[in-house]
């Protein structure tokens, strides 16, 4: 067992873990943050996407032990109190989810796309950037619309904050 300290959703967390523990299992089993899902065993589906030090990662492909001192944000940490993140709001507005299983990963990926590309996203960019996130329900149509809207709303929120 090794000692691990990191920040998850703004909360300082310390735990003794088996060194081979994956970040996704640490989040789900140790912290009971079950919004981050496991949909495959080859790091293809993206249901486990979280933000690690501000960048989106597939938490099934990250050893928890490598996250010492890191800042992790999961789907549970995206909203501010009861105020949803603009990307969460956009997913609901555009019916960008059906069964909801891929949704946390999609939303975390969507936020990351906007962080990297800015608010002016065209459809082709969104579709290309979603390559690492699989959805079996929606056919992606409404996910693309949601990320377009979420991007604009994030830009608006940023302007308002400044």
């Amino acid at each position, binding site marked *: 067992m090794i000692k691990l300290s990191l920040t998850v959703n703004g909360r300082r967390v310390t735990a003794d873990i088996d060194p081979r523990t994956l970040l996704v299992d640490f989040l*789900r089993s140790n912290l009971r*943050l*079950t*919004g*981050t*899902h*496991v*949909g*495959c*065993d*080859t790091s*293809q*589906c993206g*249901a486990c996407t979280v933000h690690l030090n501000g960048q989106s990662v597939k938490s099934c492909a990250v050893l928890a032990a490598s996250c010492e001192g890191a800042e992790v944000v*999961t*789907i*549970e940490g*995206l*909203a501010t109190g009861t105020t*949803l993140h603009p990307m*969460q709001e956009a*997913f*609901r*507005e555009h*019916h960008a*989810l*059906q*069964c*909801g*299983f*891929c*949704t*946390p990963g999609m*939303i975390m990926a969507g936020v990351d796309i906007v962080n990297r590309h800015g608010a002016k996203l065209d*459809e*082709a960019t*969104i*579709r*290309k950037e*979603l*390559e690492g*996130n*699989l*959805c*079996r*329900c*929606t*056919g*992606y*149509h*409404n*996910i*693309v619309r949601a990320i377009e809207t979420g991007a604009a709303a994030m830009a608006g929120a940023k302007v308002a904050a400044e």
Partner: protein
Amino acid sequence: MTDQGIGASVKRKEDLRFITGKGQYVDDINRHGQAYAVFARSPVAHATINNIDVSEALASPGVLGVYTGADLAADKIGGLICGWMIHSKDGSPMKAGAHPALAQGKVRYVGDHVAVVIAETLDQAKDAAGLIQVDYGELPAVVDVASAQAAGKAQIHDEAPGNTVYQWHLGDKDAVDAAFSKAAHVTKLDIVNNRLVPNAMEPRAAIGDYDAGQDQFTLYTTSQNPHVARLVLSAFIGIAPENKLRVIAPDVGGGFGSKIFIYAEETVCIWAAKKVGRPVKWVAERTEAFLADAHGRDHVTTAELAMDVSGKILALRASTKANLGAYLSTFASSVPTYLYAPLLSGQYDIPAIYCEVDGVYTTTTPVDAYRGAGRPEATFVVERLIEVAARETGRDPAEFRRMNFIKSFPHQTPVIMAYDAGNYGASLDKALEMADYKGLAARKAESAKKGKLRGLGFSAYIEACGIAPSRAVGSLGAGVGLWESAEIRVNPVGTIEVLTGSHSHGQGHETTFAQVIASKLGVPIEQVSIVHGDTDKVQMGMGTYGSRSGAVGASAIVKASEKIIAKGKRVAAACMEVPEDSVDFENGEFLGRGTNKKMTFGEVALQAYVAHKFDPEVIEPGLKEGSFYDPKNFTFPSGVHIAEIEIDPETGHTRIDRWTAVDDFGILINPMIVEGQVHGGIAQGVGQAMLEHTVYDENGQLITGSFMDYTMPRADDLPSYNVAMTTTPCPSNPLGVKGCGEAGAIAAPPALINAITDALGHEDIAMPATPQAVWRAAQKSARKMAAE
């Protein structure tokens, strides 16, 4: 309430928990003291089991139990069942081999369940599973469905000689043969409908829990139909009587058919929970999902269409070999028979149809219903034949379809179905306009200038869903009735719980069913809770598949709401001191006709419970009503999809330029949700036509057993879709609704293959039309054109 009722694109009530990570899927549930199950699976496709040595596994750290088929047999646990009896042409019942939850004496596909290890931790269970020693006596694999029945092939089940489960047929062969003999033109196609892996994003999972004090079993499972699971586990497998077995299907992450079935894993988990005295949890890894979730499709078909000189269709015949895999899954037998051949009339007036189907065992994963289930296979046959026939006879494919459309309703097809309503020309007209069919030639020329090949393909599909009238399916061999139940519990303050036997795993019932209540009872959807997925809460239900939850499940809710109104009128009459037959119910208020007396729905609910103002000898207190609704017919959604694609002949890459979908689903409860269902269905259909393929090698090893090998549709494989509706209300249910869940997956494959073959200038391409396959076909076309 019109802003919330039937017809409103209300945002989904269930979304908040999903977008904040608070959904509760089976893997998110943990029971105190739970242990973990890992299955030892067969690494070979076909073998006798000479010996299983579990001693080393049993001695492994943390192991609580290791069980094999012998242990299940000793406890008299029955095998998995197939719930639909099919009779062969000669009248004999289908020949099904046993399907034990853990193998007994033999394994029949790679992934077959040989043993289970229960251990304190998942890692300990995995480690121990690797220590189980199995002595296999390998037998030849039987992989190819087309040759599986041939003499000399290995025999998979003793009960099914020649690996043939049934040789079934439907239709009037003599009439069809006579029509073909006088045909002016016959179009013939050999068609392979490729095998697919459903791949709901949530892998299957189960937790078995046994309470020794109460002698009560609880199973948490990723099921589309928890009551059917309870019925089968109780009545056939013999886990426990129904009153001692609770099945909970909480949030379920997609199903597409694959979570209808009662599988080995949940059977073993619930049984083993009592054996080890601990809750037992199993969660599939994706690799296990590829191996052990029932696959879909896998037909090999020869089909022919006969027409006269004017282009009028005279007859259709099809001969199909359907791969059922190594065992008969829960509804496997019905998919290539009664869910397939009765759809071969499509949208067309075809006087004579004959179809024969051989259901065949192979040493592959069992095959069962996958989104569309039989209807995509039928539609592919019909819409490819129609398209090719039009091209062969020099007719415009749109006008050839229109000419042969069924134009008056009701229409009795020669293959069981009585279509109740439709307006196929309306959908075609709208689709042609939206797709700018008139501008196609110019767009083709523009593509050609860039060295690209442009093509357009139609698919005018029909489907039969809203499964199904119980007496009708009973007469065809179904082991169950296919009604749905609903119970409306009105609380004293006027809030409502609706208990439904339908199960939502993405369909949005918590919203749409509340909308039905809003329309019928005038109660805001915020005051309505939909309860589903728990056999201890909902008395009975048949679950969600076959696009049945709107047509059947919501109809049951309508029936129950009518009883609520009737009871409410009696209570209101007593309270308002007016005659019962003079009370009207409008917009959530009970009105004394001809008086100014009225009571709100909430006031009547309160009075029903306080029971101060009526005679309990005449009116029972309380406001709760239930209904079992059995549909009088299937519903028949239809529509026209048009795919337009552009191929780069240098790379074989096919780009979907535009997708037009015009569907007639009757009355829509929530158009936003319906469109979402269409989008998702099209994506799965595009996946089948261009990307997804399940490949076994000659030894029966699954080559495409992960997301690295099996091409799931990704966002950049797909276009945005142009979706529109026409509306012919369904006359067969009280809401006028039809099913919408499967339509896209049914419509899309032939539209795409028709478009690709249009671009390539010949008919020879199999699904999936991958870039390599398209490139090869483009090369062949180019050589052919050069030679001419």
